């Protein structure tokens, strides 16, 4: 009850409810976790910016009482780059979906990671384009059925965390919408840590993906997450065979790379523009 009250404090409840997510969706769980993380860090609402792209995840900012920006499909990180570089004092959180971040926004994703600008990027991965009715995305597993792969998906999926790490992100983690207390903590770390932090949140779309692939109700899909997620410490000890079908969760990469805005301050100093 206390937790719910806390979340309500940050919702734009007067204007914009009910939300458009399907009953049982994990997007709301992530939204709650994000709010709790911000609250626990004691951040000033006026200095928090939440940016999103297009899709179910794109609707998140409209519900939360921060400076919120709902941008174009795939471009959220580029808008966020402009905001952060213009005013590095702001805490900028970017919420994207898997198609948003790694298909149409794939180029922006790798380059924002490479630049290592201080953003907290959250990618809600439900393995499908949910809002448009369940077409296969760059993270749809091979063989899975979708609105555009009735005979099974023949494309190999991305591992979003590997993609972020390989592109130069400072901090990479994976959580799920089942492991909620862990999710709260991961978001707190992603906000606190300097540099580009990428948190993949494993979610599900029971409406468009679960139904086609006979994965059951939202609770069944959550149960799958519970049974097949392995914390990174334990995961590292598993053999390749044991790793099959398992999902590694926790902090997967943590580096201290130079942060872009701080590097840019140096450029300003060198050019003689330091105040």
């Amino acid at each position, binding site marked *: 009850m206390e937790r719910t009250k806390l979340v309500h404090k940050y919702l734009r409840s007067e204007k914009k409810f009910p939300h458009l997510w399907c009953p049982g969706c994990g997007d709301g769980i992530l939204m709650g976790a994000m709010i709790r993380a911000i609250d626990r860090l004691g951040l000033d609402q006026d200095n928090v910016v939440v940016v999103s792209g297009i899709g179910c995840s794109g609707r998140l*900012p409209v519900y939360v009482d921060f400076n919120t920006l709902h941008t174009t499909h795939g471009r959220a990180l580029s808008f966020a780059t402009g905001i952060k570089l*213009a005013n590095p004092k702001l805490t900028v959180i970017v919420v994207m979906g898997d198609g948003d971040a790694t298909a149409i926004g794939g180029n922006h994703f790798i380059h924002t990671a490479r630049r290592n600008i201080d953003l907290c990027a959250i990618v809600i991965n439900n393995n499908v384009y949910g809002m448009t009715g369940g077409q296969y995305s760059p993270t749809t597993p091979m063989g899975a059925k979708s609105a555009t792969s009735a005979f099974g998906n023949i494309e190999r999926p991305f591992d979003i965390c590997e993609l972020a790490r390989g592109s130069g992100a400072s901090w990479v983690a994976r959580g799920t919408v089942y492991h909620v207390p862990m999710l709260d903590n991961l978001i707190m770390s992603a906000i606190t840590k300097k540099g580009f932090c990428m948190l993949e949140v494993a979610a599900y779309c029971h409406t468009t993906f679960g139904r086609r692939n006979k994965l059951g109700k939202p609770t069944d899909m959550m149960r799958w997450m519970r049974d097949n997620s392995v914390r990174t410490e334990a995961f590292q000890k598993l053999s390749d065979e044991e790793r099959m079908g398992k999902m590694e969760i926790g902090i997967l990469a943590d580096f201290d790379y130079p942060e872009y805005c701080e590097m840019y301050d140096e450029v300003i100093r060198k050019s003689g523009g330091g105040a």
Partner: protein
Amino acid sequence: MEKKATERKNGKIKAPSRQQPQRKAKRAAASKSDAGQIVLISGNEACVEGALAAGLGFFAGYPITPATEISEVLSTRLPAVGGKFIQMEDEIASMAAIIGASIAGLKSMTATSGPGFSLMQENIGFGTIAEVPCVVVNVMRGGPSTGLPTNPAQGDVMQARWGRHGDQRIIVLCPNSVEECYTLTIKAFNFSEKYRTPVILLMDEIVGHMREKMTLPAEANIPVVNRVKPSVPPEWHIPYENTPTGVPPMAAFGDGYRYHITGLVHDQHGFPTQRQDEIKEFITRLTTKIEKARRELIMVETEFIDDAKVAVLSYGSTSRSARRAVTMARKGGSKAGIVRLLTLWPFPVRAVQRLSEHVDAIIVPEMNQGQLVGEVERHACGRCSVVPLNRFDGAMIEPEEILHAILEVE
């Protein structure tokens, strides 16, 4: 030429170096006077000077000929005044970044050419619906596609107007000299700030690359306009309120006014709406705020027009050939006149209507297969003949070609 050479020797004309901003700044300070500094610079460099005079705080861009110099010069000049420069991964990201920076409170700009301009359209549309001030410089080159990277053209006139999906208005300014690259860049910022909308500065390769002497004022010679910020407490502020001017005050993220910005059609509070009355009211406001400002936005120059029987209506570098042609025609006794559009959009409807009432013919030279000429025809309404003069072979229109057209029409 001789005079110029002597002036340069005496140190009156100075080409600003973009390699050494600090030394340049010192030199500029040494020779600074109220009258300003005489310089020999390109149109692209003048655009940079104008942007800095207007208070540019953020630039994002991607290299592309013939606009690259704007990025190059700003990469050193902007941090030197405490501003931010970033080279993005493409033009889509550049456009997104400048909108983000503007939302965070900085005056922002990007510069590109045809192929990059095509990529930017998506987010220019976002800037329009979300009402975010910013300036997009397009130094036009030959198209379509990769086209003619180093050749001049004026092929993006219609793309600038109609490149985005959906109903909207856009402000497009078109300079024809180095000095005007400076002044119109300031104006572009002023209009974008005042009307909360992206403004496109449509240069062409000739204007961007040619060098001319100009006086760089010590301070902007045009009053600089800044966006109006809300004056009421946050709880009273309605971010997309239908104010009498049609332009609501704009708070920056971080100012304490927490609000929602979206590319969806939204209500006055900024939240998505599907209510038909709200949709109609919003789209109407978005277009009428520009329509109502026509008097301020439209800049047209005329010369020899009072007794003219034939008018040459042109814009950008083509207008320089037009002026030469009309001067030659006048010497030969022709009653030729000049109409030059500094504002392409909103289209100067009244100017063309009035012109069509007292000339026999309007010649419209363009470095394309005929784009703005359609608009001229539409508003001349058959009151006079409208003669297109087009060149699309990667070369400029020569004065003789226009002169020939004048004599032929007469």
